[in-house]
C-alpha cells in the first residue's frame, strides 16, 4: 500500500460532501442557544416571581425553622422563612422570610405578624394543628398606605385575624378588671363581639379596644353604655336573692356587656364617636349621668372605724357620691385628732331636685351653690356617719337634716366646702349606754342591799307572826263561810219552794205584760176605743186584726 495515491483521493472526496452537509453542524448550535434562552427566561421568570424579602423581629424564635416555617395569610401559604438570626444587640430574633410576589401588596406599614403556636385559654383553644406541623407565622394585612419590609412581630396573635366586618370601639376605664384579650362582649346576653386589645395609657387609665361584629354593631349608639360583666352579680333585694351573670365563660375569663343607656343619657349624649366609658357594673352604667363632681370635707370628732374610701354618701337616703379619702387631722387648739373625710358628690344625682335647683339658678357657680348649702346648714343639714349594716360595721356618710342638732358655723368661702358634722347614731348609742353604765355605777348599791336586807328580816318576822296567830282564826272564818254557802246553795236549788214560786210569779207577770202590750197596740191603732169601746174588726187588709179579736 502506497501513500502516494491517497492524498489526491482524500482531497477529492471530502470537498463535495462537506459542502452539502454544512447546515447540519450549524444546526447543532440551536441546542445551546435554546438552552440559554430557556435558562435565561427561567431566571427572568424566577426573578419576576420572586416576591419581597421581609424581616420580622420577635422576642422568641421558638419553633421557627429555616425553610420549613411558612408565612400564612388566611391559612394560605404566602411565603417561607429563609433565615433566622439574632439582632445586633441580641435582644430580638430576626426572622427573614421570602414572600410570593402576589403577597407584596399585603405588606403595609401596619401589617402584623405573629407566630401561631398551640394556645389554650379559658375562652378558646387555637393553633392545635401546629402541634403536628410545627409553628407557622400568621399574617394580617393592615390599612396603611405605606408599604414596609421590616416588621416587629406580635408575641400574641391578634384577637381579630382577618378583618371581619364590624366596628372597633375604644372603651376608657379606670381599671380593666379581669378582662383578657378575646373576652366576649355581650348585648343582652348574646355574644356580639370580643375584646381585641388592652392598653395602659400614660395617665394610668386603661383603654380596652373591642370589636363588635357586623350585624350587631348597629346596636352601638352614642347613648350606649358599656360595663364590665365579669363575675357574678349577687343582689339581696326586697324581692329576694338575685344572681345574675352573662355566661360561664364571662365568669372565668371576664367579659363586657353593653346596652342602651338611661333616658337621661339621650340628652347628654356626646363625646368622640367610637369612644365610650367602661363602667364597673351594670348599675353604675345605667345610672343617669353624674355630671361634674363637687368635693366636700367633713371633720368628725370621733374615730370612724369601718369608713373606707368608696363608702357611699347619701343625701336624704339618695346616693349622691362617695368617700374619696379618710384622713387623720390634728387640731392644735384642743390637741385633738379629728377624722377628716373628703367625699365627692354629684349634685346631678339628686335628679328632679337638682333640676328644680338649677331652674332657680342655685347651681350656676360654685359660689351660689355654696351659699345654698349654707342655707341648708342653717336648716340643720349635717353630715353623720351611719352604720350601713349591723353585721359588717361598715359606715357610710349620711347628709341629713337634723334640726335638733346644735348650731354650727359654716364658711361658704372654703374650698372644698366643709360641712358641719354630728356624731353617728351608733356612736351616740354607745355614748348613751356609757352614760347609763356610769349612772348605774354611781348607784349606792351596797346600802340598798343592806336596807333591803333589814326590810326582808322585818318581813320575815311579820310573816311568822301571821302564821302563828292570824292563820288559825282565818281557818275558823273559812269553815263558817263554807256553811253559809251550803245553806245558800240549798235555798237556790231548782226544787226549792222559793225557786218554784219565783218561776210562777215570773210567768204570770210575763202574760200580764203581753196583755198590756196588746192593749197598747190596739190603742195605738184605734185611739177612739178609749171613748167608744172596742169595735168588732172588719178590715181585711190588716192581718193582725183577727188575732186581736179573741182578746177583750
Amino acid at each position, binding site marked *: 500500500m502506497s501513500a502516494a495515491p491517497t492524498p489526491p483521493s482524500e482531497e477529492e472526496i471530502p470537498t463535495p460532501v462537506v459542502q452539502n452537509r454544512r447546515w447540519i*453542524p450549524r444546526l447543532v448550535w440551536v*441546542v*445551546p442557544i435554546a438552552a440559554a434562552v430557556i435558562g435565561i427566561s*427561567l*431566571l427572568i421568570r424566577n426573578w419576576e416571581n420572586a416576591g419581597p424579602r421581609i424581616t420580622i423581629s420577635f422576642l422568641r424564635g421558638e419553633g421557627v425553622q429555616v425553610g*420549613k416555617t*411558612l408565612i400564612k395569610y388566611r391559612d394560605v401559604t404566602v411565603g417561607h422563612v429563609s433565615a433566622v438570626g439574632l439582632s445586633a444587640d441580641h435582644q430580638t430574633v430576626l426572622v427573614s422570610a421570602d414572600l410570593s410576589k402576589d403577597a407584596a401588596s399585603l405588606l403595609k406599614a401596619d401589617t402584623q405578624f405573629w407566630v401561631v403556636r398551640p394556645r389554650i385559654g379559658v375562652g378558646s383553644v387555637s393553633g392545635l394543628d401546629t402541634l403536628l406541623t410545627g409553628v407557622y407565622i400568621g399574617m394580617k394585612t393592615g390599612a396603611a398606605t405605606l408599604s414596609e419590609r421590616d416588621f416587629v412581630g406580635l408575641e400574641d396573635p391578634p384577637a381579630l385575624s382577618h378583618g371581619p366586618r364590624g366596628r372597633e370601639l375604644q372603651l376608657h376605664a379606670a381599671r380593666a378588671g379581669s378582662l383578657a384579650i378575646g373576652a366576649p362582649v355581650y348585648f343582652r346576653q348574646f355574644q356580639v363581639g370580643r375584646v381585641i386589645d388592652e392598653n395602659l395609657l400614660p395617665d394610668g387609665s386603661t383603654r380596652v379596644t373591642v370589636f363588635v361584629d357586623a350585624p350587631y354593631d348597629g346596636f352601638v349608639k352614642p347613648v350606649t353604655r358599656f360595663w364590665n360583666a365579669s363575675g357574678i352579680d349577687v343582689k339581696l333585694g326586697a324581692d329576694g336573692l338575685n344572681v345574675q351573670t352573662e355566661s360561664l365563660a364571662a365568669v372565668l375569663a371576664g367579659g363586657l356587656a353593653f346596652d342602651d343607656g338611661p333616658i337621661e343619657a339621650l340628652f347628654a349624649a356626646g363625646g368622640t364617636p367610637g369612644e365610650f366609658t367602661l363602667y364597673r357594673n351594670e348599675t353604675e352604667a345605667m345610672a343617669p349621668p353624674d355630671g361634674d363632681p363637687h368635693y366636700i370635707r367633713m371633720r368628725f370628732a370621733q374615730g370612724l372605724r369601718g369608713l373606707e374610701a368608696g363608702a357611699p354618701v347619701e343625701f336624704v337616703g339618695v346616693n349622691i357620691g362617695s368617700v374619696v379619702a379618710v384622713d387623720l387631722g390634728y387640731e392644735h387648739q384642743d390637741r385633738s385628732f379629728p377624722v377628716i373625710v373628703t367625699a365627692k358628690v354629684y349634685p346631678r344625682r339628686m335628679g328632679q331636685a337638682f333640676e328644680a335647683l338649677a331652674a332657680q339658678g342655685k347651681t350656676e357657680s360654685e359660689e351660689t351653690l355654696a351659699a345654698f348649702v349654707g342655707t341648708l346648714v342653717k336648716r340643720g343639714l349635717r353630715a353623720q356617719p351611719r352604720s350601713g349594716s349591723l353585721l359588717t360595721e361598715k359606715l357610710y356618710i349620711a347628709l341629713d337634716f337634723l334640726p335638733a342638732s346644735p348650731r354650727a358655723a359654716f364658711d361658704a368661702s372654703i374650698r372644698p366646702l366643709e360641712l358641719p358634722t354630728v356624731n353617728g347614731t351608733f356612736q351616740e348609742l354607745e355614748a348613751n349606754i356609757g352614760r347609763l353604765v356610769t349612772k348605774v355605777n354611781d348607784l349606792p348599791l351596797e346600802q340598798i342591799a343592806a336596807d333591803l336586807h333589814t326590810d326582808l328580816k322585818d318581813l320575815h318576822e311579820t310573816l311568822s307572826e301571821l302564821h302563828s296567830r292570824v292563820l288559825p282564826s282565818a281557818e275558823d272564818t273559812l269553815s263558817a263561810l263554807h256553811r253559809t254557802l251550803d245553806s245558800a246553795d240549798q235555798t237556790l236549788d231548782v226544787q226549792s219552794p222559793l225557786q218554784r214560786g219565783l218561776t210562777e210569779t215570773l210567768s204570770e207577770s210575763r202574760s200580764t205584760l203581753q196583755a198590756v202590750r196588746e192593749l197598747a197596740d190596739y190603742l195605738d191603732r184605734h185611739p177612739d176605743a178609749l171613748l167608744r169601746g172596742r169595735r168588732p174588726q172588719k178590715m181585711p187588709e190588716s192581718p193582725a186584726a183577727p188575732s186581736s179579736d179573741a182578746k177583750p
Partner: protein
Amino acid sequence: MTPLRQSLELGLVLCRTCGLAVSRASLKVDQRCPRCQSRIEHRTPFSTEMTLAWLIAGIVFYIPANLLPVMHTSGLLGEADSTIIGGILEFWRSGDWDIALLIFIASVAVPLTKFIAIGLLLLTVGKSSRWQQHQRTVLYRVVEFIGYWSMLDVIVVALTSALMQFQVLGTAEPRAGIAFFCGVVVVTMLSALSFDPRLIWDQRV
C-alpha cells in the same frame, strides 16, 4: 518507542460503527462501509464544533438544574422543595453520609468531571497537542462510560415520585430542576458521542 503510524499514511479509514479498517482506495463516492453500510469518514466532520455546542448546552442546563428544586415533598410535617445540593446537605447532616456521597458523585462530581474532561479534550484537540495522547483517549472512554450513571438522580426522583403517593400522609412530585438535570445528562452524552477521539492523535505535521 517507534512513533505510531497514522491511518492517513497507511491509506486506511476506520468505520466507527463496526470497527472495520477500510482501504481508502476501495471506498466509493458514497463512502459506505462495505461491511455495515454505515457512513464512513476519515474524521467525523465538524466533530469539535458539535461537541462544543452540546457541551455549552450542557453547562447552560446545569445551572437551572442546580438552582431549581428537583423534588417537592409534602406531608403531615409540612412541605418542602428540595434542590440537589439541598438534598445532599440534608442527607449529610442527618448522618446518612454514604447516601449523600453517592448522590454527590452521581449528580455533582460526574457532570462536572464530564464538562472538564470534554472541555480539556476539545482544547487539546484544537491545539493538536501531543500531550498525553494515550491518557486522553482513556479519559474519553471513561467519559463515555460514566455518562449513563449520571441518570441516577433522575431515576431516584422518578422512583420516589412514583412510589410516594400517600395523599395526606405524604406525596412527592418532580419539579422543573430534574428535567434540566436530565437535559444535562442527555446533552453531555451527545457531546461525548459527537467527539471523534481519533482527533486526539492528529497532529500538525
